[in-house]
């Protein structure tokens, strides 16, 4: 397997995109929270909100830079490692990818520079506008990338020419793909949750260590109020809507995600269990009877198609990975709802800042949304296999034909080494920014770092 260029190209894309997505999920979520903080600052005139926004903009800046340097390899790899895919489909997905560069990146990078370096010369309204432009840029960027992926999941608005190359048939069909709308809402709520848990964790850390109490309370309060809404919307309607898209357009993917090997009426949902692909069964299952039929088709006795109703060559090629990443995502999403509801209840009762147990939970939970978001993307991308473009092009047809496995190995190893260095530097900078803190009342000097 590993002497085969296709496998190495897949591993390299999987690794680099997974590592990349650590950063955008944080920056997209933080862009929203920074906008919330700047809006509160503009409304109340309270300097603490500005201080909070300035502190999180520092973290945003570090993460944004890493998002950029780890993101450029994504665009490059479409050409370097997936040349046949690009040649066939570039005229369609090139639309959304080029739009991302033209509409989002100029907006984001110009206004990030102004936000970080220009608070004095922009004035309060100008600085709020810079925060708004950063938010708009990063959320637009998210949409255009999701729309690109959605087209691969559920291709619409294309034509196929006589030479096999695709062209655009309808710009609006591509841009307003039903799949993209659900996937976008679900993805952005995931990013919002990542940022909420990060902001809450830093607030909890300060409260537990009795530092920067005023800022810390602001962090926890903002993060829990936004976070509890995001956690619930993540499940319903967006998670549910996304799930029904999969059921409608990718039934084989749904079967792999749920570990359903045999079609049945009134299908149960598996909470736990290990898929045994050779014997076509789920070992050690913990079932909730009839639940899957109800969730998918709103009927307790509806028939859910199992993997046995598809040709084996159309099965996802990594069923256990699909199954586990999906279950990890859903399991963690459920835990987030519990944590956020509990924290919101304590906040409402005015007991959150004194509840050390709850603060410890918020502090320790911060890595979990990163895991959940990555698990979600792994589900989406591996459940689509063996298709690169669902129903139109198989993954093995999209790979660059001329690039030897040795060259792909060389660059995969290079990325592993480089990204390890980036991860260390990121954690170090994050640690020192958090250690320096947002500053306290009194030392409210503009730009104090």
């Amino acid at each position, binding site marked *: 397997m590993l002497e085969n260029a296709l496998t190495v190209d897949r591993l390299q894309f999987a690794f680099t995109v997974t590592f990349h997505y650590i950063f955008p999920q944080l920056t997209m979520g933080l862009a929203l929270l920074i906008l919330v903080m700047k809006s509160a600052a503009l409304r109340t005139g309270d300097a603490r909100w500005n201080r909070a926004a300035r502190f999180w903009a520092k973290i945003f800046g570090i993460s944004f830079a890493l998002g950029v340097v780890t993101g450029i390899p994504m665009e490059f790899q479409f050409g370097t490692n997936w*040349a046949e895919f690009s040649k066939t489909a570039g005229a369609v997905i090139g*639309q959304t*990818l080029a739009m991302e560069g*033209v509409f989002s990146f100029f907006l984001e990078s110009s*206004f990030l520079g*102004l936000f970080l370096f220009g608070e004095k010369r922009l004035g309060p309204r100008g600085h709020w506008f810079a925060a708004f432009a950063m938010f708009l840029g990063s959320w637009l960027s998210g949409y255009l990338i999701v729309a690109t992926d959605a087209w691969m999941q559920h291709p619409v608005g294309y034509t196929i020419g006589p030479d096999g190359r695709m062209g655009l048939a309808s710009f609006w069909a591509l841009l307003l793909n039903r799949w993209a709308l659900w996937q976008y809402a679900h993805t952005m709520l995931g990013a919002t949750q990542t940022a909420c848990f990060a902001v809450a964790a830093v607030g909890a850390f300060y409260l537990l260590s009795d530092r920067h109490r005023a800022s810390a309370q602001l962090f926890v309060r903002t993060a829990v109020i936004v976070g509890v809404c995001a956690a619930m919307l993540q499940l319903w309607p967006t998670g549910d809507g996304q799930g029904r898209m999969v059921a409608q357009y990718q039934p084989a993917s749904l079967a792999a995600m749920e570990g359903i090997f045999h079609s049945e009426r009134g299908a149960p949902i598996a909470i736990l269990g290990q898929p045994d692909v050779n014997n076509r069964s789920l070992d050690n299952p913990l079932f909730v009877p009839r639940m899957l039929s109800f969730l998918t088709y709103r009927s307790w006795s509806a028939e859910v198609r199992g993997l046995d109703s598809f040709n084996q060559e159309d099965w996802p090629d990594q069923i256990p990975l699909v199954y586990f990443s999906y279950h990890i995502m859903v399991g963690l999403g459920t835990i987030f709802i519990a944590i956020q509801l509990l924290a919101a209840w304590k906040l409402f009762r005015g007991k959150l800042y004194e509840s050390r147990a709850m603060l410890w939970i918020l502090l320790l939970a911060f890595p979990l949304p990163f895991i959940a978001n990555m698990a979600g993307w792994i589900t989406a991308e591996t459940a689509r296999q063996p298709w690169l473009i669902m129903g139109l092009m198989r993954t093995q047809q999209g790979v*660059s034909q001329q690039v030897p496995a040795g060259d792909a190995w060389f660059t995969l190893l290079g990325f592993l080494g480089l990204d390890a260095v980036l991860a260390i530097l990121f954690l170090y900078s994050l640690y020192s920014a958090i250690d320096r803190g947002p500053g306290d009342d009194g030392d409210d000097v503009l*730009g104090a770092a």
Partner: protein
Amino acid sequence: MGTLWFCIVAVMLAVYVVLDGFDLGAGIVHLVVAHTDAERRMVLGSIGPVWDGNEVWLIAGGGTLYFAFPALYASSFSGFYLPLMIVLWLLTLRGVAVEFRNHTRGAIWAPFWDAVFALASLLLAVFFGAALGNVVRGVPLDAGGRFFEPLWTNFLPGPNAGVLDWYTILVGVAALAALTLHGALWVALKTDGEVTLRAQRLANRLVWIVAALTVAITAASFHVQPSLATHFSGNSWGAVFPALAILGLAGIVWFSWRGRERNTFLASCAYLLGMLTSAAFSLYPYVLPASTDPTFGLTVHNAMAPEYGLRIGLIWWLIGMTLATGYTVYAYRSFSGKVKAGAHGEGY
């Protein structure tokens, strides 16, 4: 439609070279013209608020290339696999060096990041030049429009050429000299005191090296790719592009002698634009000539995306780039004038 998008992509990439060129150049010269930590922070402060915006022109230009000429993107990116990956790593290291210089405390870190920044900037300039050299020289395309080039073979620009041969290395060195000059002029424009004087002295010497290399690569290009001459002889108006480059070069000498920093830098922009547009004009209609059989070469016609998508693209591209030009100009105006030592030194 293909020709129009050829011009758009060429202009976007040329703007990228002019803008990111000065911050690459500033990276190359800053070890030489800025000696103390405060001086280096002043140089970095002059590019701090704009460098990642400059790099966006590469990403947006690349995205536009992908959308308008998917077959060219697929063929060239997979064919130049290793050099492109190395460019990616250098871009990463360079971005990280600027970013983390402000976030790592302790005396040993700043010189370390400065060295990483300088080395990555220098190698990027050479690689970008070599990439242009490869496109002019042509690559061993097969009938399916595919090729794969190793980094080097025997350093001769024949049918078996690698990415690096004597011609592409020569273009790489010329790019290095031109961007170093460009960066020195930017530093002279944006700083004051000793740093400005050192940058000006360096620029005054470099301009003659750039002039000599310009003559050398022009002669070498016509030798390696004889078809370049035909397009100029058929369309004599194309002479405006090389004329722009020559005027730019003369302008650098003239304005720097008169002590006009701003005009000297603008003349350097004109020189770079003139050189790049000359190359694009002389290649047209080819976007990637073949060194094997001329008919295998990729042209604006056989590499372009279907018509409908390109027409739609024109609408959003015009809207998007009008907005983008607006932000870019606004950001540059907000940070106009000389950087004072220590002003943006802390970064964020």
